[in-house]
């Protein structure tokens, strides 16, 4: 059904456009706060103008969040149509995989935002990597909708890939929060931005709370992958590059959780570990898929 695939592509582009717009509005929010501050200083400390500018930045911020929701809806539509077009679960190649990881990240971010409204100004920093990844997905990684090879036709695969995708997307949020946390602590942020971003405490909590949801899901996904590999490849674990890097990510996130419980490690060092963990997740998604595993053919069949 080529029309469906076409609509899926259009929705994809629309979603990217809306995300970019949401980022612009977040930028406008920041600018409004900054100019409010300038006026404040110019007016010799009178609170009057600042109070007037607040609602303006507030309006921009609300619009940015609404647009993010709209973007996520379009994005989800694009993925669903893709599945209908290819008549299979829409996680069969790098393009689809990356797109779904980004959707998971955006949805996770929106859910966390509901639970912790104080972290709203993290929004554009979540959207930035999402837009970059989607751009890569839509250009370099793009593949036409097509069926997949026999080894990939299994419901365990569907469970495995879906949970890996969701947990990878979820892990983007703590990755971003930890980077912002480290930047804030380093004191190297421009003063305007530093004033806007949530406190390091809110950032730290955002990272931790998202990680403790993502980590068990990731653990489950790895187990599901092992169950599938046992049926498809004849062994549940074979240290192939993808499995190995998943193991490395898993151990690093376990180290993060340990660091959170170790005196002297709970703040900056834990944040570094979280960033390292997300780096290995990205590394697995892109480098291993495209460079290492490209040399490596799994089984004779397919």
């Amino acid at each position: 059904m080529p029309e469906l695939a076409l609509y899926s592509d259009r929705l994809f582009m629309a979603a990217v456009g809306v995300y970019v717009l949401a980022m612009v509005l977040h930028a406008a929010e920041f600018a409004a706060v900054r100019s409010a501050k300038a006026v404040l200083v110019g007016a010799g400390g009178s609170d009057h103008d600042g109070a007037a500018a607040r609602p303006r930045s507030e309006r921009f911020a609300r619009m940015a969040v609404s647009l993010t929701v709209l973007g996520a809806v379009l994005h989800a539509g694009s993925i669903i149509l893709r599945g209908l077009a290819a008549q299979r679960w829409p996680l069969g190649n790098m393009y689809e995989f990356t797109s779904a990881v980004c959707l998971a990240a955006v949805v996770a971010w929106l859910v966390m935002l509901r639970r912790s409204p104080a972290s709203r100004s993290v929004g554009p920093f979540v959207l930035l990597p999402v837009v970059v990844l989607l751009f890569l997905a839509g250009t370099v990684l793009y593949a036409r909708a097509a069926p997949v090879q026999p080894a990939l036709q299994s419901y365990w695969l569907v469970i495995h890939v879906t949970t890996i995708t969701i947990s990878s997307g979820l892990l983007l949020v703590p990755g971003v929060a930890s980077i912002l946390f480290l930047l804030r602590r380093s004191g190297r942020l421009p003063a305007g931005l530093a004033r806007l971003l949530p406190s390091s405490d809110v950032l730290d909590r955002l990272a931790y709370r998202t990680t403790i949801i993502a980590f068990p899901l990731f653990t489950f996904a790895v187990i599901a992958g092992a169950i599938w590999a046992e049926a498809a490849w004849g062994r549940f674990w074979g240290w192939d590059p993808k499995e190995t890097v998943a193991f490395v990510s898993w151990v690093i996130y376990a180290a993060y959780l340990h660091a959170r419980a170790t005196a002297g490690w709970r703040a900056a060092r834990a944040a570094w570990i979280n960033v390292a963990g997300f780096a290995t997740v990205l590394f697995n998604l892109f480098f291993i898929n495209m460079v290492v595993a490209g040399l490596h053919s799994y089984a004779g069949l397919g």
Partner: protein
Amino acid sequence: MVQAPTRPHADPDSRAPGPRLPGVVLLRNAWRSLTSMRTALILLFLLALAALPGALIPQRSLNQRLVDQYFLDYPVLAPLLDRVGAFEVFASPWFAAIYLLLMVSLIGCVLPRTLDDARALRAVPVATPRNLARLPHHGAGPLDVDLDEAATRVRGRLRGWRVAERAEGDSRTFSAEKGYSREIGNLVFHLSLVGLLIGFAAGKLFGYEGQVIVASGGGQFCNTGILGYDSFRPGTLVDGTGLDPFCVRVDDFSAEFLPTGQAASFAVALSYQTGADLKAGRVDAWRSFPLAVNNPLRTDGSRVYLQGHGYSPVFTVTFPNGEQRTGDIQWRPVDPATLLSEGATKFEPPGITDDEQRRTSQLAITGLLAPTTSGGDVVTSVFPALRDPEVAIDVLRGDLGLDDGRGQSIFEVSRAQVESGELVRVARANLVPGQELTLDDGTVVRFDGVKDWVNLQVSHDPGQVWVLVFAVTMLAGLGASLGVRRRRFWARLTPSEQAGRTVVELGGLARTDRAGYGEEFDRLRAELLEPIEKDG
């Protein structure tokens, strides 16, 4: 925000002083630092770091060819890497050292901690601190009721908590604690990791993996010994005797391809006999099984997988004396997309006893097989399915070199024999099924057709079911450990100067990680204090 104090792990000061002998002290200190949280962290890092080369450097267990290529590409570096075991990271002693230390550290850390917690489980929640306002979560306010009613209210709110009520002068205090299953989850999680590792190790010691090619259309294989396999990878403690003696028979192979040539599905109609069948003498009783990718046969503690397939051209040679021989050895695919295959089908002329003569009259048919031929002079394959086969063959005659004691690939003729002139090409032709070719001495070579073969893998891993069991308990433990918060709540009720009013002070502390206790505490505080705040 104030940081909640964490429990010290294996904090030397928190233990009773031990014996004073220097050696014992040294040992004790070594044990304490091994089982500290910080050591666990460092070992986890080392584990992650040590595993990475396994993904970035080719590994022997996965792909010997890539390892050989690496040696060619980096002639200086590769031998050095080889010396430290970088081409078999996961079998190297340093990798084993890291995870074994981690397991020892884990047991030494988590078990004593859980014993402590088991004791705490029976203990009464600790007394209410004097100054609740100094806790990370706190609140205070007057209640418009007398002490007894206030106490009833607090008691009602703390249902589901472990509560101790104490009198303290005129005041009354409540100490409450909740979330014990966190520690249980933590213990289950960590011990499951140990179980998982033991299951994994059992597989490596007692398991095996063997590959065998079986012809479709009735080819059989019995798992009676390692000699039946084309390749066999035994576990460390497997000597190849005492395999489970089941048999399989490949009745039919079928493949479907998309018009692009991409494989759509593979299936084998398999028959099998279990070890019990054979033991009971039911040698004619075959059970059938639809073997497919993603659907292995599981029998007698082993699994049989469909791993690959290919083609065997069938040739019949009619020798000048009228005797016939048919050869249908498998050829190997050289192009996975079109299944163009190459191979060598070898014949011994019948009825020849003279060694010298035999060595000059052996035959080999080598060349290419296209399952769907392009039809040109140079045979190429355009599609992987068997639609329109054609072979392009060289017939060689002479000494195949089978007797010189060196093993020979079944897919090739010995290049040395060709170069030395002991094996000579006597004919070359392209044949489709039914066509034949007559050699100078009157021998006739006929191409009869093509058979399918399948590559089966037999895997035996007695540990894997335990790995699965422990993976499941690990996940459950992890869920409890991360999902449940261990937290404390205190309330002190003091009669106010005004009769009929009570001053309430509240305090809260998350004992493990503070994330997330705030909301729950705020809700409790609101429920206990707000009714009064509204009217007063």
